[in-house]
């Protein structure tokens, strides 16, 4: 504590090594060794708990799941009936699973651009406000603090319920329209309206904040220069100044959106499942696998095979996306 420490990192590494030769000139090798040993000790003390947690709760289950996927594991996590790739072939031939992948791809292809555009539009609008900007920022951001489960239940039970006193049906009723069972009607598939709006409502505010931060980082000098060069405010400035300047933010937002879409479970499960299971539409893979592996079926081997297939797909997509966006490449 006597030693002056202007900067903790220097204190930990360089400060100590500088002090060692001065203190014990006769045995120069030992202190260095001891230091290295100590550093390793402290490294493990700080990193250990995290690494342990990661290992116990992520890597071991992951490896176990891969192991299970090669067995006929009904109601057991220590199976003994090896069936090789049997689970994989039947999973890939399972219409419900491949159908869920298609469902998911369609959902992803819609929700990612939709959220992107909506949050960008909100950010541009809020950013232009002269007054009450903080108010509108909060208003749009607040839904992000709401849980998916709660929002899904509100959407299901009060806004989009199928009876005449549901909010949506009441409003439509003023114009003489018949009541619509939003979540039960398959043609047209109104349930998508419910699923997509709940997610947009929950997510858009959060990404709007990211875009706002990005917008505020753009130097006003660029806009001044553009004005001097005769760029018309509005689309031209947006197209050539604002949008390119938001590239880093855009890449981050799209990546986060895709990852979030992959994790879609909460609102689907809470909007569409009932005591007897889940309907065969709008069933993303996680929901299907949840019912297979963890539902009453307890077919852990089969469910694990599906999870491994899904993980591989996610890995390929993420790597491809990172390549495509040039993630980690230095910006110029």
């Amino acid at each position, binding site marked *: 504590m006597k*030693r002056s420490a202007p900067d903790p990192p220097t204190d930990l590494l360089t400060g100590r090594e500088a002090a060692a030769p001065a203190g014990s000139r006769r045995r120069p090798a030992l202190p260095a060794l001891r230091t290295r040993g100590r550093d390793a000790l402290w490294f493990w003390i700080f990193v250990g708990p995290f690494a342990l947690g990661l290992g116990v709760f992520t890597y071991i289950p992951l490896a176990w799941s891969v192991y299970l996927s090669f067995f006929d594991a009904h*109601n057991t996590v220590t199976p003994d009936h090896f069936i090789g790739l049997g689970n994989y072939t039947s999973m890939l031939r399972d*219409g419900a699973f491949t159908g869920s992948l298609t469902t998911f791809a369609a959902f992803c292809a819609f929700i990612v651009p939709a959220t992107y555009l909506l949050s960008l539009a909100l950010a541009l609008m809020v950013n232009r406000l002269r007054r009450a900007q903080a108010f509108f920022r909060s208003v749009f951001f607040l839904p992000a603090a709401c849980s998916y489960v709660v929002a899904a239940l509100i959407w299901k039970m009060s806004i989009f319920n199928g009876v005449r006193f549901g909010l949506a049906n009441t409003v439509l009723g003023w114009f003489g329209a018949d009541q619509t*069972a939003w979540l*039960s009607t*398959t043609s047209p598939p109104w349930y998508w309206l419910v699923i997509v709006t709940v997610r947009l409502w929950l997510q858009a505010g959060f990404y709007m904040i990211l875009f706002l931060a990005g917008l505020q980082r753009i130097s006003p000098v660029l806009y001044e220069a553009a004005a001097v060069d005769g760029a018309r405010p509005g689309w031209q400035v947006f197209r050539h100044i604002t949008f390119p300047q938001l590239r880093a933010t855009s890449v981050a937002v799209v990546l986060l959106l895709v990852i979030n879409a992959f994790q879609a479970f909460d609102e689907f499960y809470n909007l569409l499942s009932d005591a*007897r299971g889940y*309907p065969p539409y709008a069933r993303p893979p996680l929901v299907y696998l949840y019912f297979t592996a963890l539902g*009453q079926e307890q077919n852990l081997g089969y469910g694990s095979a599906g999870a491994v297939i899904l993980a591989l797909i996610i890995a390929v997509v993420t790597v491809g996306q990172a390549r495509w966006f040039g993630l980690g490449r230095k910006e110029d």
Partner: protein
Amino acid sequence: MTVSRRMLLAAGAATGAGAALSACGSNTGRGDGSGSAGKGPALQQWYHQYGEQGTEQAVQRYAAAYDKARVTVQWRPGNYDQQTAAALLTDSGPDVFEGSPTLDQIRGGQVVDLTDLIEGVKDDFNPAVLAPKTYRGRIWGIPQVIDMQMLFYRKSLLAKAHIDPPTTLDELVDAAKALTSKQVKGLFLGNDGGAGALGGTPLYAAGLELVTEGGKVGFDDPAAARTLGKLHRLYADKSLLLGAPADWSDPSAFLQGLTAMQWTGLWALPQVQKELGDDFGVLPFPKDGSGAPTVPVGAYGAAVSARSKHKDAAKAFVKWLWVDGTADQKDFALSYGFHIPARISLAKQARQLREGAAADAVRFTTEHSFAEPLLWTQASKTAYQDAVNRIIRDGASPDGQLRTVVRKVSAELDRVQR
């Protein structure tokens, strides 16, 4: 000096962790007998959360009265069947629990053979609910109470539309259509249009079954497609109530006047009686073609986990409560919710079951009920329910859908009978 500061921190963290660990150690959730009396081994008993007032206190009272073991009751809300399925894989699961038990649990050796417990009184158990607890002649769960489902209808609404209570599926379709107005729908079969709630019921009403006695698919028949196709007519006519805030198992939609008829369970009877008085009647699911009307019945069975450390004590407790304790069984079935006792002798004694709609329900149960066979596993159920969903709501071809289901179910039946 620096080190000592860090050491302090590390030591603090270590003591903190130690305290947390010892805190864990003192509360394992096992064996600290709340709600138990007497001596002997500690047993854990699990129930799913019954909705009716007083049920939890009742089961705790039964457990406390047992003097050969210290029984702790756990009342488990949420996805109960999934919780038990997961808990049976571990050593910290229940000793005694209510469960189906499922075929895979039986085949996997997760539950204990209870055949000898009901020796002598086997014939007193309702065979409809004892059969799904029986596998290869052995009994794996003691039926607790019978739950059944049926069709409730508003007498006044039917009278106003000059409609008689439907006795065939075609009449039901027509009645539902005639009863539908701008404000009131004709029929409520659940928010999914009926696939979940009805399950195999329409097949039994058409004289078919889910799984035959010989363990084969019981609905590989053109009649099945015909019957299920009629359910689509209900949907296409817009006679079905869909998207109600409370699903079919809750009588709210019926009580609020959102629908003229609703498929729900016997458990709803006290509530319906209280709110509607005499203005309702009950029906079985009407017959179709050459079939007969039918109602689905089901029962949770009291089962013993094979991982229990005190299997014999657990079995003795199950025998004491669910075989010998007829007074408690009657109390459990009739004092809180509304169920039919699983024991024929008790059902006959029950005064509450002798008149009105309750008497009808008992008659339906004795005359033409079915329970889902043990061989009808979750994989088959999912495949079948998906298909019925598509038939009802998408108007998919029943023949084509059923062909796929028959193929999947045959494969599943082969697997479980290997």
